[in-house]
């Protein structure tokens, strides 16, 4: 008897391990992990960039007024460094032609910033180049997500956009769950906090959109129409997910996209 029960335990452990393994071999696992990293990479980069900008501004505070973009700013810090070396020529060489940086050299000379010790500048340069590496990694990751989404769910990916689609996929837990989902649920994925706040207290208004807010079509229309567009878009995205999960992956997204654009035009 005791032997039997040990046998049962061993086979149950074996079975459980196999089930976990199967779950981890599903096609969407890597997309879900990757998109979660993507969000964190963005916030990590922005956090580091803010710090670099603050630090570098003790040396050359004027620079932030003509280089507003975090990535370009960090490039200048890591590649050029001292404000004495920052010139119009050097900037356009590093960042391309369209740099609005007239009289940078002049500004650098008259800067209200302090001179920076060599060691500190070295640290700062290191920090900037490491942050830029994160940005590189993010770009590669995005390409990976785009490719994988295209393979896993071409219609869904086209309808929602690959990165937004991956976010929805992660939130839903998989393509199957997305395909089984009512479109009103998909519309609010990512807005759970606002939704539950609304359910708890009717005084706070219910959300009209979650992640879907980031879709170009929703972004494009004025505020009063955003809710409508989000609703139509959610409907089409769910249809696309169903086509991908249950169907033979024939292209239905192109047609639906046209229909949606038509609908957006008819608003007002």
């Amino acid at each position, binding site marked *: 008897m005791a032997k039997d029960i040990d046998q049962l335990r061993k086979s149950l452990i074996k079975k459980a391990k196999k089930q*976990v393994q199967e779950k981890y071999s599903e096609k969407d696992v890597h997309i879900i992990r990757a998109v979660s990293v993507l969000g964190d990479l963005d916030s990590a980069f922005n956090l580091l960039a803010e710090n670099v900008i603050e630090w570098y501004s003790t040396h050359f505070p004027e620079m932030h007024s003509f280089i507003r973009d975090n990535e370009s700013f960090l490039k200048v810090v890591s590649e050029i460094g001292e404000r004495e070396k920052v010139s119009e020529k050097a900037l356009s060489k590093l960042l391309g032609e369209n740099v609005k940086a007239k009289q940078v050299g002049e500004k650098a000379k008259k800067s209200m910033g302090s001179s920076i010790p060599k060691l500190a500048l070295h640290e700062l340069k290191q920090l900037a180049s490491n942050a830029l590496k994160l940005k590189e990694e993010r770009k590669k990751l995005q390409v990976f997500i785009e490719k994988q989404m295209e393979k896993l769910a071409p219609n869904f990916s086209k309808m929602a956009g690959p990165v937004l689609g991956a976010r929805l996929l992660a939130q839903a837990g998989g393509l199957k769950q997305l395909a089984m989902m009512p479109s009103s649920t998909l519309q609010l994925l990512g807005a759970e906090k606002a939704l539950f706040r609304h359910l708890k207290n009717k005084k706070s208004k219910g959300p009209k959109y979650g992640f879907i807010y980031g879709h170009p079509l929703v972004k494009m229309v004025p505020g009063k129409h955003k809710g409508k567009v989000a609703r139509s878009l959610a409907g089409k995205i769910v249809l696309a997910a169903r086509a991908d999960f249950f169907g033979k992956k024939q292209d239905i997204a192109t047609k639906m996209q046209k229909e949606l654009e038509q609908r957006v035009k008819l608003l007002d």
Partner: protein
Amino acid sequence: MKEIFPGVFEQGSKLFTKNLVPGVKVYGERLVKEKGIELRQWDFFRSKLGAAIKNGLRHLPIKPGSTVLYLGAAEGTTVSHVSDIVGGKGVVFGVDLSERVMRKFISLSEQRKNIFPIVEDANKPWKYKAFLAEHKIGVLFQDVSQKNQAQIFLKNAEYFLKKGSAGMLVVKAKSISQNVDVASVFGKEVGQLEDSFHVEQIINLKPFEKDHVLANCIKL
């Protein structure tokens, strides 16, 4: 050190169980030696059964040698203490669906010879009925955060519990409704049990868990 239930010890305000695998911690708890026996401290902020004992559970059906069906095993924090109590002659079947928490639970069951992992949905008892076939379940313990928690409990009780067996149900009010008054949710959920159970005691798990009660009952 006082033994308040078979296998459960109390010293001051702290609870302990006898460590089934001496020297090994499960979730970072404190290990204490007492007269050559190693005890594991039971963190009642992390275990609802621990919280219930702390809040005055009168009768603990889980005893040395019991066969327990544990629904909602999660990472096995509470299960590890149940496994301590039932000891080498007892058996704990732990059911959970999420592979994320099962990773830890499977390693736990490899360490502890009385834990049996089952990756299935507690909502579908027929799926794991076959594994339990030869084992008479003495205690059904359930801690799942599902909207139909009471139904899941009743369904499993129908499959596995005989008359006189014990059932312990943790009710999480926030899984059922976000906006209705908590007390009425508890009343409604526990009320559903009354046809097939004798409800012995209802324990609020405040302040260790918010909006939770544990119903200790006997199958009719």
